[in-house]
């Protein structure tokens, strides 16, 4: 029997300058179960090193609510990384 997959599938969104840095606005990603938003951002920072410098100014949301970086991801979650807002 195949081992139970220890991953969750999350939808990841980038906006503003982060979208430009990452090169895409949206991606579905299989990610290690019981991981946090912080770990998800770290994964992208490994892939795209210039992303790391934005960490201190970026806020995260989970399912369209601002979320703490230590929030644990569940399958089906929609996570967005939000640079400082500049509407108005």
């Amino acid at each position, binding site marked *: 029997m195949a081992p139970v997959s220890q991953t969750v599938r999350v939808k990841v969104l980038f*906006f*503003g300058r982060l979208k430009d840095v990452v090169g895409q606005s949206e991606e579905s990603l299989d990610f290690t179960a019981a991981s946090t938003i912080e770990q998800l951002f770290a994964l992208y920072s490994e892939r795209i090193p210039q992303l790391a410098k934005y960490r201190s100014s970026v806020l995260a949301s989970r399912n*369209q609510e601002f979320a703490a970086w230590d929030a644990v991801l569940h399958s089906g979650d929609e996570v967005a990384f939000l640079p400082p*807002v*500049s*509407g108005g």
Partner: protein
Amino acid sequence: MTTALYDDIFQLVREPIDPHSLIDHVRAPEDGAIVTFDGFVRNQSHNRPTLYLEYEAYEPMALTKMRGIAAALHEKYPIHRVAIVHRLGRLEIGETSVFIAVSAPHRADAFDACRFAIDTLKRAVPIWKKEHFEDGAVWADGELPPAPVATPRAKPAS
């Protein structure tokens, strides 16, 4: 989108905003005042001539946050109706990017609520603008939204 309870309006639009329809919407016989905020595209940024702006939003979250602003207004001020509309996409100099209208029986509440609405929108609604200049484009330096739930800010003693 409107809230049934107050008949407020929250919209993200890609066409020019029509302020008159929003003012008419919030106006009612029991009111005595409407205060509006018209935010429009300035022709320069830090003394660099602006060509045009591009706005984008995390749309479902932005609408949720706009609805939250209206709910907060009704909680804080004795007002009647609120309309908050933000435009997305490319905007030329002088075009309205955000329009807010608040009606109330009395002017002071309408002024206070409208000010609170635009100040909160600029801080907490996930919308971003890219400024296009002769020699390139930059994302505007934005404001940090309120800290997330797990790290609540200390409240000053009242």
